[in-house]
């Protein structure tokens, strides 16, 4: 968590955003993030983001569900309390399949969503800096981190040249914190 200075550029079309992302990456400025109102396909690749491993997490959670269900039912019916149901075998695998399947799905889904919340840092009560109120409406907003080595004006002029419809400089918290969305933060008022 740190309060940093950002140059912010807003674009009104994906067609303009993609070349702009490429130019900013080539220029060597440090791109903080791009905020879009909907998932823009290919943007992650354009920004050089890695593929997510969320699927793998889901698979592992699913396996946990499978083994929990199978292990638990087998243990109960063969050793903890074997009951004779109409002379059928104690370890009746076909009859265990429905519950095993359900628990696999349950564990995979719940585990994945929790992992997703953790990785994305989203949770009730979490607050993050919103660079532009229209970034969830119709603007594609790019934040470039500023430091002592680059001049503010230079970055802003550069962003303007990439086709931004709006540019400004903002001081903002770069991570998340617990807060109320109806209240302004001290750094925003300063």
């Amino acid at each position, binding site marked *: 968590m740190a309060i940093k200075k950002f140059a912010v550029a807003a674009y009104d079309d994906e067609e303009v955003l993609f070349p702009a992302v490429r130019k900013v990456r080539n220029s060597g400025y440090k791109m903080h993030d791009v905020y879009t109102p909907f998932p823009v396909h290919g943007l992650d690749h354009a920004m050089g983001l890695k593929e997510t491993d969320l699927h793998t997490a889901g698979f592992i959670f699913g396996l946990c569900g499978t083994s929990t269900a199978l292990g638990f039912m087998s243990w109960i019916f063969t050793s*903890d309390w074997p009951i004779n149901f109409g002379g059928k075998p104690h370890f009746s695998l076909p009859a265990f399949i429905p519950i095993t*399947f359900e628990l696999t799905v349950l564990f995979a889904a719940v585990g994945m969503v929790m992992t997703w919340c953790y990785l994305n840092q989203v949770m009730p009560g979490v607050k993050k800096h919103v660079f532009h109120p229209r970034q969830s409406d119709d603007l594609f907003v790019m934040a470039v981190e500023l430091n002592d080595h680059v001049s503010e004006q230079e970055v802003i002029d550069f962003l303007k040249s990439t086709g931004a419809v709006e540019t400004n400089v903002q001081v903002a918290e770069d991570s998340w914190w617990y807060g109320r969305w109806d209240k302004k933060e001290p750094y925003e008022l300063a």
Partner: protein
Amino acid sequence: MHIKYESIVREPLVDGDKNYHQVTEDIISPIERKPGRMWYVGFFFSLCLLAYGVFCVTWEVYWGIGTWGINRTIGWGWDITNFVWWIGIGHAGTLISAILLLFRQGWRTGVNRAAEAMTIFAVMCAGQFPIFHMGRVWDGFFVLPYPNTRGPLWPNFNSALLWDVFAISTYFTVSLLFWYSGLIPDFATIRDRAKTKLRKLLYGVASFGWTGSAKNWQRQEALALVLAGLSTPLVLSVHTIVSFDFATSVIPGWHTTIFPPYFVAGAIFSGFAMVNTLLVLSRKILHLEDYITVGHLEAMNKVIVLTGSIVGCAYLTELFMSWYSANPNEAAAFKWRIAGPYWWSYWAMMTCNVVSPQFFWFKKLRRNIPFTFIMSIVVNIGMWFERFVIIVTSLYRDYLPSSWAYYSPTWTEIGFYLGTFGLFFTCYFLFAKYFPIVAVAEIKHILKTSGEGQKKRMAAIEEQSVEEFVHEQAHAH
């Protein structure tokens, strides 16, 4: 950048030449306005139904299951009929959100949010019936496998009824997660444009602090895809397991291998009908005709005629098997279904489920909104009768003729059913007021391929010769 192109032959999914901001405005502004008078009337009526349902259930819990019309012969009456009916309705939501996502059906974006909400509310309604059918409902937690002081004595994991407990609770949880993970970005949209402090606070909490960062979207899409992959077999398994409640027992009319596919088709059939009922009204009241178009309704009517015909085939197969199996009990069960004291329920089922959807072979009728609305109700009446026929007319004449009986519901049973309508519509009215009933982000995602405005611009490209097109696009990079 490749050009976003979809043939103009395909009907647009969003009518009118809209930009992103207009989409937000059209879908979010009803949430920010005071609801109309219709909303208050409907909401109040639903609350009254819910209150009456609560009263009837309280009466039943206080005096016992004896207040219901079920008896020694017919142990499952209206309550299990209603349970299967509501659970079936829920299936359409998951089909739209999961299966159609895997099939890349663009039209799901307009209807998936409302359909998923319907799923969740329908499963909530369905769950009430087996719970209160237990009688001593305060001991309901006995169905859960928890370490207890009775041994521990575990539930029977080989029982289809216990599979149901797992299937339905998993189904509810996964549907809720799927639905909510899609809602988070839309809540963020409402939060960012909120004018009042209270709205900012509440939608701020509901949006989990979502900002729409590129990495978050990447994970969001991965999550949606995997959840769709998980929900697809899940939704098929849920109604399969519900059908096992019947098919694994040795009762003529129930003991049949056709039940799982037949139940799943029936579930989707009734669910799409309910989606149509809700959306025909919602699109009108909330002025969302541009997003939930006649094309959307037509697509759903096509699913209705397909699944309705599958259900019809299943009915005929059942009849054939009752003769071909040469089992006198099986033959008798079906003879009494058709011509016994409950003949009217069998023929109501046949008319509503097999005959009536065949009208949807005609394009004019598929695209006729009043007709769609009437049909959606007819289909759900038919599907209710299907479950009634399966349950009551298989039980009322058992192996011992001296215990043959007739069954009619009492006022508490009817009130319980009405009460679940109250619950369902109370939830739906709140949803329609406070939630974006069309997935805003998803509509924006398809807007530049399937919107009417984009299609108009594509007309010029479609006129071009191949050489011209290639020449122009080669330099577009």
